């Protein structure tokens, strides 16, 4: 079956997702358009988790016994998969964290905090998710350093010129999203990184919303830090990735203390392991790392470029089908945006849209999407957001359009 004129076989992909398959049966098939909040899981990821627990499980980096070695191998193999997925130079530059949020917190606390002095600054953008705002605010508190915010235009395009002016020689770090979770805007991360590096600033890229949709290449971007969440790339919850350049990581103090991150401990002096272990205190989410690696393998097998093309076709169909609906306004119209479609309906609050669509078994997200400053900038209380994943179909887009037409009539 050819869903969008390419070789991409969405029916085959859907068959890999038991939840999607099961809930698509019956009188009211589920239409899941909330992948930007979290993606559903392919069977292969669930099996990787259960296989690991049923066959290979023990704690890592500790036991002399074979099972501990097996688990350690699986965990470190997952790190190598993560390295390949983001194209890092070496696996040691890939730190397992709980999610993108924890990655940002780690960098804010371990890298930025000690460098924030009066006169210093951190640069963010208007479109950031709370996860890429609040950790920086916490690091800034009481330091006398300043938070700077790069504006966007009404389409949701970042003002690159303003970015170049706001980043200066006193910028400790510039942190920005690769893809906006509300607007779908794809930021020119490579260009922004080059601009920031020219001023001597470090760069953190929040790739939480980019990683599900496109190939992540830290070597090409040149960024110092990059974070992503496993659960948004068809992997398990509770696991994510922080990429950081070795030379920076080596100079960073640990984020948390505990077991598995020390060389020696005495009450007089404790010494720490090297990277990446120094940043993974305590028993990590071993199975989660294995599961996330399975998800990365799966995405690569389907093909990041294929996923991107399929989703782009869904987005353009969505635009075409929803454009004629009276009072519907697309929020975020940046050229080349990712498959995230935020919208408002005149006279109908996003929550009412969400409840109504839910009654038609269409799952979307409604609200501020953890981006309150962006909502304030856009002067709207929230949006309804349909977001697409590799398993969505053109028919599902059409169902969304039909349901929205019904809502408009109901509230007219």
């Amino acid at each position, binding site marked *: 079956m050819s869903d969008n004129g390419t070789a991409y076989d969405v029916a085959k992909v859907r068959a890999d997702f038991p939840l999607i398959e099961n809930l698509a049966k019956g009188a009211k098939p589920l239409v899941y358009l909330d992948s930007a909040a979290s993606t559903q899981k392919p069977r292969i990821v669930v099996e990787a988790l259960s296989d690991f627990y049923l066959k290979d499980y023990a704690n890592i980096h500790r036991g002399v016994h074979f099972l501990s070695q097996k688990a350690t191998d699986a965990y470190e193999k997952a790190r190598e998969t993560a390295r390949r997925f983001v194209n890092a130079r070496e696996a040691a530059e890939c730190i397992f964290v709980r999610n993108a949020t924890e990655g940002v917190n780690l960098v804010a606390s371990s890298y930025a905090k000690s460098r924030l002095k009066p006169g210093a600054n951190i640069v963010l953008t208007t479109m950031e998710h709370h996860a890429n705002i609040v950790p920086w605010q916490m690091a800034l508190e009481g330091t006398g350093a300043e938070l700077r915010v790069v504006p966007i235009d009404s389409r949701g395009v970042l003002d690159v010129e303003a970015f170049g002016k706001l980043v200066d020689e006193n910028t400790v770090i510039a942190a920005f999203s690769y893809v906006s979770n509300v607007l779908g805007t794809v930021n020119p991360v490579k260009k922004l990184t080059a601009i920031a590096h020219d001023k001597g600033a470090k760069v953190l890229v929040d790739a939480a919303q980019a990683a599900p949709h496109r190939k992540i290449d830290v070597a090409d971007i040149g960024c110092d830090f990059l974070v992503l969440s496993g659960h948004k790339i068809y992997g398990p919850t509770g696991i994510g990735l922080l990429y950081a350049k070795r030379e920076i990581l080596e100079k960073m103090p640990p984020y948390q203390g505990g077991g598995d991150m020390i060389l020696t401990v005495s009450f007089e002096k404790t010494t720490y392991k090297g990277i990446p272990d120094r940043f993974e205190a305590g028993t990590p989410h071993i199975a989660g790392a294995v599961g996330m690696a399975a998800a990365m393998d799966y995405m690569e097998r389907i093909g990041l470029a294929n996923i991107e093309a399929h989703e782009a076709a869904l987005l353009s169909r969505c635009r075409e089908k929803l454009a004629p609906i009276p009072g519907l306004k697309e929020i975020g119209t940046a050229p080349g945006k990712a498959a995230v479609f935020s919208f408002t309906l005149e006279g109908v609050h996003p*929550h*009412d849209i969400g409840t109504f669509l839910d*009654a038609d078994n269409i799952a979307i997200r*409604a609200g501020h999407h953890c981006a309150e400053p962006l909502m304030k900038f856009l002067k709207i*209380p*929230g949006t309804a957001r349909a977001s697409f994943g590799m398993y969505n179909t053109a028919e599902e887009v059409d169902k969304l359009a039909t349901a929205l037409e019904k809502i408009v009539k109901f*509230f007219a």
Partner: protein
Amino acid sequence: MNEMEELYREIILDHNKRPRNFHAMEDATHHADGHNPLCGDEIEVFVKVEGGKIADISFQGEGCAISKSSASLMTSALKGKTLDEAKRECGIVVAMLTGKTDSIPDELGDIAALQGVRQFPARIKCATLSWHTLEESLQGGKTASTE
């Protein structure tokens, strides 16, 4: 009646479109902000108490059809009531919305139209926000949150 018509009854749609007492009040004696952090709904309730009675009551803010119509119905129902009556009614309505009681007293009048919300757990807080905010303001508080 399908489930959407059950939730969004005519009365609710009417109060959503034409909210009553939807304005700020300069000379309010009591005032509180209500916030639903889950969805970002924000509401302000203003009350003017004179001689133990609610002489005037109004609200403003942003919210969905459920939260807006609930606030509008509340202000319409409580204007002129004594403080004791108002507090009692707050208790009855919140109990009805949260499913603590199945009985819907006749005295609720139009407010009974909000009962459909009980079938939608995700929306109950939308309906209770204005009532909690009113209770908070009458107790001398400044902010109410559904969390």
